[in-house]
């Protein structure tokens, strides 16, 4: 109880979901969820497959609507501005809200070109500036020492874990404020997973991080807050230690102790 009080004073809300309901066509994937993501904190979303975890974070940068027919009710507030307002520029929104996907998806280009892909979209073409961005982003994603001598090698030649860190670097290169991670370790081995987790621990100093994971130990290890989703509904949302040691909800307890899911 004491910890909760202490953190509450220091923290600032970065993203706020306000009665968010999300449909794919006629299928309701998310049902009236309200929750907050705090600045410089890691918020984990856990829940069984198909409960809407990915949909929830993808609603923040509006990436689902590219490939799907979607309908949204409620609000997603980024710094108190609803991202579903008509005057929102999607390009600007996605620059501010970076994303790392489930499977590493580097472009079939060189390591260098992958990192500068975003900045180049915004018209940064100065070689020196791009070089700086590459070193800065790769250092932050803890990949610089491994690849600094082969920046012009193909990104496909990297290992899975390295590719995922490259994708993180690529997302960081456009200087986002929020980082969405959709099960970033699900395609990686334990060693690579451990490295990404360390990295997340480090990155939260600068970014608001929302991470979807099906691995409860992972959520317990790295997150400050945890939300438990079931069938598109937010069953419980609290400080991670509370969720894992003393859940309010019986269903949450059942899921965390492995009775289903």
């Amino acid at each position: 109880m004491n910890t909760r009080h202490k953190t509450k004073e220091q923290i600032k809300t970065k993203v706020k979901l306000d009665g968010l309901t999300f449909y794919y066509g006629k299928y309701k994937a998310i049902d009236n969820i309200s929750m907050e993501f705090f600045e410089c904190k890691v918020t984990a979303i856990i829940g069984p497959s198909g409960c809407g975890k990915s949909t929830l974070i993808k609603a923040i940068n509006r990436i689902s609507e590219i490939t799907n027919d979607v309908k949204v009710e409620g609000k997603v507030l980024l710094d108190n501005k609803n991202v579903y307002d008509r005057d929102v520029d999607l390009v600007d929104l996605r620059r501010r809200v970076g994303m790392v996907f489930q499977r590493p998806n580097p472009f079939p280009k060189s390591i260098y070109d992958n990192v500068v892909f975003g900045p180049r979209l915004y018209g940064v073409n100065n070689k020196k500036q791009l070089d700086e961005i590459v070193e800065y982003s790769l250092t932050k994603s803890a990949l610089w020492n491994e690849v600094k001598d082969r920046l012009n090698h193909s990104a496909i030649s990297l290992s899975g874990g390295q590719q995922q860190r490259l994708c993180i670097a690529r997302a960081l290169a456009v200087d986002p404020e929020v980082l969405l991670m959709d099960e970033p370790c699900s395609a990686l081995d334990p060693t690579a997973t451990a490295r990404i987790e360390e990295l997340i621990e480090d990155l939260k100093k600068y970014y608001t991080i929302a991470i979807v994971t099906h691995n409860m130990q992972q959520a317990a290890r790295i997150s400050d807050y945890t939300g438990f989703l079931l069938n598109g509904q937010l069953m419980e949302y609290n400080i991670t230690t509370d969720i894992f040691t003393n859940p309010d909800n019986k269903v949450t307890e059942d899921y965390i102790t492995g009775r289903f899911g």
Partner: protein
Amino acid sequence: MIIKKRKIFNAFFQGLCFGMAFFVISVLIAILVRVFFGGAGVITPGFLLKKPIEGMTAGGIFPAIFGTICITVLMIIMAIPAGIAAAIYLTEYTGKEFLGRVIRASINNLAGVPSIVFGLFGVGFFILFVGRGVDRIMGFSLAFGQPVMLWAAATLALLVLPVIIVTTEEALNSVPVSLREAAFALGATKWQVVRNVVLPQARSGILTGAILSISRGAGETAPILFTGCAYFLPRLPVFTIPYVHIPVINPLDQFMCLSYHIFIMATQSTNIEATRPIQYGTTLVLIGLTFLLNLSVIIFRIYFRKRQR
């Protein structure tokens, strides 16, 4: 007993498939062998580099080779950008909406139109409507409003357009969604995604479309029959730029073409018997030329694939 029957049927079906595949291949081999032995004898440097003489019963076929290369290249230059643009529109912008389905159905129907109909359409639309219209507006006596290489190439381009659109569409669709998502998530606009992610990935597939359309277009006769192909021309369709004296291909001239040359030698010549070896030789050259044009695109494709890595 049932097991045995099943095995017999299996063997029968396998044999049937093999037989059909073998039949198809043997037809191809038969054509190639016949043409090769019939035509290889007449192919000499003179045959490839001189023009026909004595009512096509002697001399070479150079003007027809030249014309075929010109028209095929011109056709590709016109068809590829239009085809790629149409395919991008279909895959990236319309999807499965009503308009997209209408366009797709039109393209499939266009692919089924007989080539002679394209030829007649070329006369009616390109020569009489567009060409004469341009002449009237620009005040030319007769420049665009007649059968010339430009309109023949345009007609061929229409003919191969469905091939290019369909293969390009397939190539664009095969670009993984994850890469598109990655680009969109970085704040790319649709055009930036197409330009920087989708097109570079689809490049070799698009070139496959170009290869198929060369094979289709280079040997066509009917579409160019009325739109610019000539029975015989004493000179090449070349235009010399005044003062600097650089010869360039003149798309507003008539041209000779290998496919048409074969047709007239076999049907219109005064002495069909005497032209027979030349017919074989010309056919062999046409097949060889189509192969060479394809080869150049294939080399292009290998180059792109290497660069992608």
